[in-house]
């Protein structure tokens, strides 16, 4: 096992709010880590810091030994980190296919002034991913008109085009209907399985999904990590049961 992501002593405050307080997280290549926590615990903030959208007030983040703390999202993306978003970030006026083509185009770092974006091989590649995510029926629809769940999937599919080493998913299943959640998560994990050893961190509120798909659980509360263990152990911890799953009454 090799250490892929290493966050040490992350601190982040927004005014009076502590969004990260001495967060230490190390992730080995190939792990499937679920981030859980109450609302406002700092999960998204953690993802934002890893991907360079926010700079930690203190602390250091390394990716495969390289310090990525000062880098911007684009640079970090080029190092093989991709993410999806709690609120899907798509190109609303473009079709689903075009969204995928943009993802493709951006991934090739040398953009061309004359090579058509809609050339057959690029379309084929985009369609392959759409197919894999069951989105092919929506290929030509303007994405601002797509239902929420479909947008979520498209958001994730775009994150995957670059064949990332590390994939961060922010609540991939929230807002997705109950029947579709599990198949969808299965789809994502399948799609990942076909890309070699992608490491995944996913933020999740549904404990069934956490139990089924995570090899490890990190629980947040008020900016702190309150548990970091296998799902079985972490979900049984008192703090987690009190603050996250609500199985114990908060004091």
């Amino acid at each position, binding site marked *: 096992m090799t250490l892929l992501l290493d966050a040490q002593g992350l601190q982040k405050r927004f005014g009076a709010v502590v969004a990260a307080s001495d967060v230490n997280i190390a992730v080995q290549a190939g792990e499937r880590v679920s981030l859980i926590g109450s609302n406002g615990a700092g999960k998204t903030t953690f993802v934002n810091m890893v991907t360079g959208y926010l700079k930690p007030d203190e602390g250091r983040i390394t990716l495969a030994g390289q310090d990525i703390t000062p880098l911007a999202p684009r640079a970090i993306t080029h190092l093989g980190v991709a993410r999806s978003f709690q609120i899907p970030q798509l190109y609303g006026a473009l079709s689903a296919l075009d969204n995928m083509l943009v993802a493709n185009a951006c991934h090739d770092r040398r953009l061309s002034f004359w090579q058509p974006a809609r050339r057959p091989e690029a379309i084929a590649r985009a369609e392959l991913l759409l197919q894999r995510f069951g989105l092919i029926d929506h290929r030509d629809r303007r994405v601002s008109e797509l*239902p929420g*769940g479909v947008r979520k999937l498209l958001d994730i599919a775009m994150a995957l085009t670059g064949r990332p080493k590390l994939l961060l998913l922010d609540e991939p299943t929230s807002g997705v*209907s109950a029947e579709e959640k599990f198949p969808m998560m299965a789809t994502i994990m399948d799609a990942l399985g076909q890309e070699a050893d992608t490491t995944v961190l996913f933020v999740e509120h549904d404990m069934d999904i956490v139990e089924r798909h995570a090899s490890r659980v990190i629980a947040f509360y008020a900016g702190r990590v309150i548990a970091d263990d296998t799902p079985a152990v972490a979900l049984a911890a008192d703090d987690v049961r009190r603050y996250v799953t609500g199985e114990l009454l908060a004091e």
Partner: protein
Amino acid sequence: MLKIEGIHVAIQSVVALRGLSLTVADGTMVGLIGRNGAGKTTTLRTVMGHLAPSQGRIHFAGQDLATLPKHARAELGIGYMPEDRGLVPELTVEENILVPVWVNKALKVDQRLALVYRVLPELMEMKDRRALLLSGGQQKLVALARALAVGTRLLLLDEPFEGVAPALSKRLGEVIAGLKGTEISVLIAQSDLNHSRKLVDAEFTIERGANVAPGVAAH
């Protein structure tokens, strides 16, 4: 209380609802269940007057809503919690809750606040924080509180549990359940049944903008 009869709604050129009907009886809790894109949000937005049905009618407490301007619904005692929360980032939590109370002459600020804080005491400690600082889940809570503040007769809740951590979603469930037996009726739009199964008296399933199996809920 609320009666929707065969409404057809198109958003731009996309037909989102095709002949949907549904009733919320006085004092009951009704679920509107459907997959993503089935038309739940569209239904609620149509009730709130943001979309105009091309066919069909919507009655509330015997009144045809089609003739009313958008803002008159709140006055009738309908509280709406939009899917994307829709808080005003510059305002504090308490001010956000109060916006509908201020514009409604029939409501008293003190009373409504007291009610909201009684039902959702965790809001007390964040009442002076600006809404922009809240996390997604916290914002849901505030949006629910705001709907409660004005919704004296009917609450329209759009995916109240989406993106909410289990602990909080339990709380939300309790709060909503606590409304049972009061004069307030509730319509909850949901794609995920897990949270609301136990809550609702009746359930309407919607698929591609039309009813599937209107029926009475199983308890």
